């Protein structure tokens, strides 16, 4: 089988459930793009696939790109992976758009993840508290947070069993080695449900707005083996630094510069050892519980080990 024929065959297989596609027609379209217009094969595949998607009135999510594999919630760390989950519906939220049938939170023993079920996928309705086997869902990512999408190829099966849901809490320990930009006294977009951090007084979504002050720290906690990114919200920042939001505003006012707050914070926290516990969002740990590690350390066990090596 020629290379083009092989690709044509793949595309044909993807659509065979949805559309009466002639494999010669697929091959012809690929050949035109590749031979005549010198389009690289992967781009040609993409273009031809999109053509049939449009013809069938489908979205890219609706056609499976190969097999899916069983996974746990905590394994989801990449978008556009096809996986099978066994999960409990923890919460259902109000869909914000007519194209979404259901949206909410799924959980399994390893953690929780948002899910979206498209209206046109025509799947059975999920009940809050129900445990389901969900085969062939696709992962997605937005700003470091992952979700799964149920689509028309997803097989939903209600299971008659209880499932313990673990929280995504992690505990990290190490020295705070860096504070990233966007820390200290910041301004957020005041529009409803937006809260984006303003860059030079501008919100990515709403343009120039009168921002609202907030305090936060984006830090890096490093134990010499891994570097973890941690976020302190206003309360955690106030507690950690002893600087309240009001004091931070006064400091910035006096200096006519908001960066003085970050400078002051960095001096207080960088180089200090902490144990931080909290929920994880993508690659971030949200600092719920913060403990400064300043007590004595036990060197004896290590000394015995070193001498016996």
């Amino acid at each position, binding site marked *: 089988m020629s290379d083009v024929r092989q690709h044509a065959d793949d595309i044909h297989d993807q659509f065979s459930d949805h559309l009466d596609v002639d494999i010669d027609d697929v091959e012809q379209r690929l050949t035109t793009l590749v031979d005549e217009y010198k389009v690289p094969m992967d781009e040609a595949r993409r273009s031809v696939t999109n053509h049939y998607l449009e013809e069938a009135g489908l979205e890219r999510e609706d056609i499976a790109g190969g097999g899916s594999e069983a996974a746990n919630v905590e394994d989801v760390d*990449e978008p556009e992976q096809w996986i099978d989950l066994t999960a409990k519906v923890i919460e259902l939220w109000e869909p914000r758009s007519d194209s979404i049938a259901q949206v909410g939170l799924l959980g399994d023993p390893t953690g929780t993840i948002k899910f979206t079920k498209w209206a046109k996928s025509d799947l059975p309705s999920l009940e809050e508290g129900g445990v389901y086997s969900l085969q062939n869902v696709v992962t997605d990512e937005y700003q470091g947070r992952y979700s799964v999408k149920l689509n028309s190829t997803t097989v939903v099966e209600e299971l008659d069993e209880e499932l313990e849901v673990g929280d995504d809490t992690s505990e990290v320990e190490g020295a705070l080695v860096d504070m990233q930009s966007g820390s200290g006294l910041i301004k957020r977009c005041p529009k409803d449900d937006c809260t984006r951090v303003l860059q030079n007084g501008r919100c990515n979504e709403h343009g120039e707005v009168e921002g609202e002050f907030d305090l936060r720290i984006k830090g890096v906690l490093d134990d010499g083996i891994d*570097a973890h990114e941690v976020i302190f919200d206003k309360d955690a920042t106030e507690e950690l630094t002893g600087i309240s939001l009001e004091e931070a505003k006064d400091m910035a006012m006096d200096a006519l510069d908001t960066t003085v707050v970050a400078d002051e914070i960095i001096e207080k926290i960088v180089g*200090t050892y902490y144990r931080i516990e909290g929920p994880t969002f993508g*690659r971030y740990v949200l600092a719920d519980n913060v403990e400064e590690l*300043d007590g004595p*350390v036990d060197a004896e066990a*290590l*000394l*015995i080990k070193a001498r016996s090596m």
Partner: protein
Amino acid sequence: MSQAQLTREVARRVFASEFNDSTYSFKESDDERAPNYALLPTGDRANRVFIVGTLTETEDVGDESEYWRGRVVDPTGTFFVYAGQYQPEAASVLRDTEPPAYVAIVGKPRTYETDDGSVNVSVRPETIAIVDDDTRDRWVVETAERTLDRIEAFEEWDAEQEAPEGASTAPGNEYAQMARERYDSPVENYRRDVIQALESLEDVDTEAQASV
């Protein structure tokens, strides 16, 4: 599943004696922006280090613009830290701090060849913070632990090299191999440094001594 994002380089824990022996540096790819690594003699790579010690001396060694050199001492030796106009925050800490003081430094290893052909290793700081003696002690213990872990992995790899052909089951240790090729000093030296560092911590020695 693979990590999609570029991961931040970890800050390795390494004592001064081993750091100053890390004279060989390398890149993992030909890309111009590929990170630079110092090869640690116990068999690991370090693009960034976290050190805590006593700042004992600072001096402006620059000609036209300020270029600050700080000596930072740990139980095994001295780190040399250089900060100039491109590290303004770190330079100002070196300028303003009255030694002696405990400092915590995050920085990158840098090597330079002297006129007589020997290679010196120094730290180019990203941040310097004043810390207390508890933090210093915690760092010594943590660095001892990380160093012992590296030595252990090195020795496991080393033992496999002597095993009869085909009997090897241990995972490869790329950087132990590289260290063996590049350096002469045996890892045993760094084990002794670890012991010396731990013994230097007060109140530890007498009790542990009894159990040997």
